[in-house]
C-alpha cells in the first residue's frame, strides 16, 4: 500500500530538506519512492508543497485531493489551504505558527481565525505542535523542519535509528548537532 505524505508551508521554511530526509528514510526501508517538488517562482515566500510517496511500486509523483495519509504543515494557513488533500482518516501534523501572506499584510484580506479548531470541527484528525518554540529551545528557528520530522517519525513504524542515520547523511556537518537535538525534541 502506497503511503502518501505532503509537506506544506511557506517558501524558505525548509520544506525541501524535510522531504529529502523523508525520501531517504523510505529508500533505507527498501521502498520505491517518488518525491515531487516545485522550484522557481514559488520559492520566494509563496505557498509551497512537496509530495513524498513510498510503497512497493509508486507511479504518480503527486498526491491528489483526498489522498494524503499525512500532511506535515509548517504553517496554519497552509494547513487550511491543503486540508482538502487529507484523507478522511489521515493525520494533519500542524506546526502552530502563522505567517501573514501579502494580501493580509496589506489589509486586503483577513487571516482566517481559529484554523485548528475549524479543521477539527470538520472531523479532521489534527495534531498541533509548537515546533517554533521547540526549535528555539534547540537554539535556532531554522530547525523547525527537523523538529517536525521528529514529530512525523513518531507517527510511523519506521525505527528511530534509521531516521537518525539519515539525518546524519542528509544535513551539513556543521548543523548536525542542532538537527539531531531538534529531531529528539520533536520525537519526544
Amino acid at each position, binding site marked *: 500500500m502506497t503511503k502518501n505524505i505532503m509537506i506544506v508551508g511557506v517558501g524558505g521554511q525548509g520544506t525541501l530538506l524535510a522531504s529529502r530526509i523523508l525520501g531517504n528514510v523510505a529508500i533505507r526501508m527498501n521502498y*520505491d519512492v517518488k518525491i515531487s517538488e516545485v*522550484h522557481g*517562482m514559488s520559492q520566494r*515566500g509563496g505557498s509551497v508543497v512537496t509530495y513524498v510517496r513510498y510503497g512497493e511500486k509508486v507511479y*504518480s509523483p*503527486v498526491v491528489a485531493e483526498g489522498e494524503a495519509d499525512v500532511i506535515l504543515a509548517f504553517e496554519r494557513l497552509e494547513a487550511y489551504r491543503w486540508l*482538502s488533500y487529507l484523507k478522511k482518516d489521515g493525520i494533519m501534523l500542524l506546526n502552530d505558527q502563522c505567517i*501573514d501572506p501579502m494580501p493580509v*499584510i496589506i489589509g486586503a484580506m483577513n487571516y482566517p481565525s481559529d484554523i485548528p479548531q475549524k479543521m477539527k470541527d470538520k472531523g479532521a484528525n489534527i495534531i498541533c505542535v509548537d515546533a517554533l518554540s521547540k526549535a528555539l529551545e534547540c537554539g535556532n528557528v531554522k530547525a523547525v523542519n527537523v523538529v517536525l520530522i521528529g514529530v512525523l517519525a513518531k507517527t510511523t513504524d519506521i525505527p528511530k535509528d534509521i531516521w537518525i542515520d539519515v539525518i546524519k547523511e542528509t544535513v551539513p556537518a556543521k548543523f548536525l548537532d542542532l538537527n539531531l537535538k531538534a529531531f529528539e525534541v520533536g520525537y519526544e
Partner: protein
Amino acid sequence: MLGNEAIARGSFEAGVTVVSSYPGTPSTEITECIAKYDEIYSEWAPNEKVAAEVAIGASFVGARAMTCMKHVGLNVAADPVFTASYTGVGGGLVICVADDPGMHSSQNEQDSRMVAMASKIPMLEPSDSLECLEYVKIAYELSEKYDTPMYIRLSTRVSHSQSLVETSDRQEITISDYKKNHAKNVMMPAMARGRHVYVEQRLLDMKNMSETSSLNKIEMADTKIGIITAGISYQYAKEAFPNASFLKLGMVYPLPEKLICDFASKVEKVYVIEELDPVIETHCKALGLNVIGKEILPIIGEFNVELLSSAILGIKNEVFKIDENAPVRPPVMCTGCPHRGMFYVLKKLGLMVSGDIGCYTLGALAPLESIDTCVCMGASIGMAHGMEKARGMEFANKVVAIIGDSTFMHSGITGLIDVVYNKGNSTVIILDNSITGMTGHQHNPTTGFTIKGESTRQVDLVKLCKAIGIDRVVVADPFDIVEFEKVVRTETDADEPSVIISQRPCALLKNVVFPGPVQVNQDKCIKCKMCMRIGCPAITYKNNIISIDESQCNGCGLCQKLCKPNAIGKRVQL
C-alpha cells in the same frame, strides 16, 4: 535522483563533451548538475539561440553535444534548431526541452511536441528519472544513426520529481577527423532542397523504426479499457487504471501508426491520456480510430490520478471542504531585495512600466503594482519603443522599460539597438543585481564568473550601452530613493534615449551582508503606513500596531528611509 539530475547523469554516461544552455524553470538543474562533471565542458550562454548554436557547432565537428532549455526557450532557439534538422549532425545532438503544464513558473503553457512536428525532429518523452537517464543514451544513438538532432521532452513533474535510478560508467566517444561537407552543412537553397528530401525520408525511416522500438511498449491486461499515453501522464494513468491495457509511447514524434492501430484493435474502448494539446489523439483520429481524449479530459493544466479516475470512471474522492476563502500566498520579493526601492519610486511617479521576465515581474503584484506589461524575455524595451511610436513623445516620457541584467544580455540589447537606430527616446532601467536571480543564482555575462565559478571577462553594461549609441547612461542605487527618484525624473524627461543601471546585488547572495533586524518604536510610530507601501514581507499591521518580524528582517534599511518620525531602528537605538 531528480529527473533533471538523471538527464545530466545520462549525458555523462553517453560521453557528452559539450553542453551549452540558458537557465529556465523547470530545466535549470540539468545544466547545473552537468557542470559538476569535469569530463564535460559546460556553459551558460546568453540565450537559448546561442546555446543551441554552440551545441550544433560542437556536433558538426564530431562531439556529442547537448543544449537544455524551458519550453519558451525553444522558441528563442527555433531558428538554428529548425535548420539543424536539415543539416543533421556530426556527433550526436540532443535538445532537452522542459514544458511547464500548470505554469508553476512560466508565462504560457505551450506544448513542445508541436514544435517537434514543425521542425521535423524526433522527440522522446521519459516518464520518470530512470527513463530520463536511459532515454538520453538512446537519443544519442538514434541521433547518430539517423543523422538527426533529437529532442527530449520533459515536464515539471518529471524534471522536479525524484525517483530511483541505476547508474553505469561513462562511455568515452572518440571524435573522428573533421571533413568539409558543403552539401550537408551549408544550408543555401540548392543544398537545403536536397536536405529537405533527406529529412522527409528520415521521418519515414524513423516512423518505421518506432513500430518495433522498445521505446514504445504495449502492456496488455484487461481489454475493456485501452490507454494510449506518454510521459508523466503514463504514471498517473497506470495508478488510476491498474487493470487496463496500455500503449506507452516513449517516442512521441514520429508516432508508430501500425502499432497504435494494432493496439486499438485489441481493446474495446481507447482513451488517449496526454497533458496539454491533443497531439497523439489528433493523430489517432486522423488514422480513423475512435478514441476518447479531450472530450472528457482538460486541455489546460496538469493531470493527477484523481482527475483521471473521476473523468473516466466517475470515481471521486471524499474530501474535507473549507467554508471560506483562504487568502492566497503569492511569491514575494525577498526582504532586502534591491528591486523594492526602484518599484517604490516608479509607483510614486505614476509611470507606465513595460516589464520583463525575472524576480522583478513580482513588481506587478500589490502593494507595489508597478508593472503594466510582461510578455517574454527581452520584450520590455521593444514594447516601450512601440508604445512611443504609437502614442508619441508625451506618452513616452511617462513610460520606462525595466529589465534584469541577465534578461538584457539574453535579448534586451537588440531592443535597445532598435531604440537607438530608429530615433526612439525610451528610458530603460537595467536591474543589475549581479546574478540571474529567479532561477536560483546562475552566472551570466555581466557577473564575471562562469558556470563553474571561474573568473572570466565581464561585460561592462555602461560601456556596452554607450557603444551602441546611448549617450545618457546613469548608474544609480535603488536604495537611495531620493537620488533614484531624481534620476528617473531627469531621464524620463530627456528627449533622447537613456539607460539607468539600477545597481545593487541580490539580497540572497552570500557576500551581501546586512546589519541585522530593526524594530518599530511604538511610541514614535504615527501609523502613517509609509513603510507598508514597499510590500516587505517582514512588516505587518495588526490590531492597529505596525511591527517587524525579526526572524525575517535583515535590516536592509529601506523602511527606515521612508519613516518620517524615525520610529524604525535597531533595538539599541530605540
